[in-house]
């Protein structure tokens, strides 16, 4: 299992430093806000690329919009949640606005087939890539609520509370979606279970 880089896997490690940079940004220091952008861009773009499936360009535009909105609303951030969680919430709301503007309900209501995996032939020789592709496909077949709950909890490394806040749903509802999603994934990804030779 590949270990994620500390900055990405655990943005909480930067919470103290975030607070210092954030204080400068709130005084109107755009350069300080730039540091926050650099620190959190990968996570936010990953979130939006998952939400906007099939268009990395649109996802990045929405991520930019989210950061600009965050810059304008810095005064509203009360520190009740982690800064990264607040950013993810803004990004998710920006995504919902985008969906409404596109008058497209496909992304949220229906379960679409996953995009064809790039370099699939190479994946046969690359266990990590094959695993990722299998998981992406299995996630894509879940109802959106379950998919989003699992993605935010296990691929963005948010706590249940944070994920519920980002997705705007009660904690109990989120936990229910996580449990149901896990039950379905357990069947879909049974080939990757320890009994089949994968260390957990």
């Amino acid at each position, binding site marked *: 299992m590949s270990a*994620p880089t500390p900055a990405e896997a655990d943005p909480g490690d930067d919470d103290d430093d975030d607070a210092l940079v954030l204080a400068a940004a709130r005084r109107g220091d755009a350069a300080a806000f730039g540091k926050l952008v650099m620190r959190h861009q990968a996570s936010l773009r990953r979130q939006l690329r998952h939400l906007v499936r099939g268009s990395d360009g649109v996802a990045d535009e929405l991520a930019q919009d989210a950061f600009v909105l965050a810059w304008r609303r810095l005064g509203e951030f009360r520190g009740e949640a982690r800064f990264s969680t607040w950013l993810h919430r803004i990004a998710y709301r920006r995504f919902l606005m985008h969906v409404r503007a596109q008058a497209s309900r496909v992304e949220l209501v229906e379960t679409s087939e996953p995009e064809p995996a790039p370099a699939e032939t190479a994946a046969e020789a690359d266990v990590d890539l094959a695993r990722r592709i299998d998981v992406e496909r299995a996630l894509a077949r879940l109802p959106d609520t379950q998919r989003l709950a699992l993605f935010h909890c296990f691929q963005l490394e948010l706590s249940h509370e944070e994920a519920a806040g980002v997705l705007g749903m009660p904690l109990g509802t989120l936990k229910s979606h996580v449990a149901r999603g896990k039950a379905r994934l357990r069947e879909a990804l049974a080939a990757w279970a320890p009994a089949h030779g994968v260390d957990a």
Partner: protein
Amino acid sequence: MTPTRSESQGEPGDETAWLEALLRAARPPDLDDAGFSAAVQARIAVPKGTVTPAAALAAAGQAERRVRRHGHWTIAGALVGALVAALAAQAGPGTAVDPAANPAPALALLAASTVLAWLAISRKLN
């Protein structure tokens, strides 16, 4: 607030622990910045000539101090006017005063008028 991280969300002995590990391991690869942060910076950069909130606050503070300073001058002007009135009263009621013989009241009135006019003009200009 330091929320519980998702690492601890699986119960010990949870038979889906392998699934959680699989989901984490299969997360999309990290994205290089590739100019993304610079693009955001360009969007939030303040165009030249645009007043920033900090500058607007500073300007408002300066204006407030200027108004307060003018208020002080107005009070000073009123006091000078009262002094002039008192001096004029001492000069004698109802008697014709020859400015050439006793120029003090006339000079005082002239000075007071000048001060009041200056105050009025300076307030108008500011």
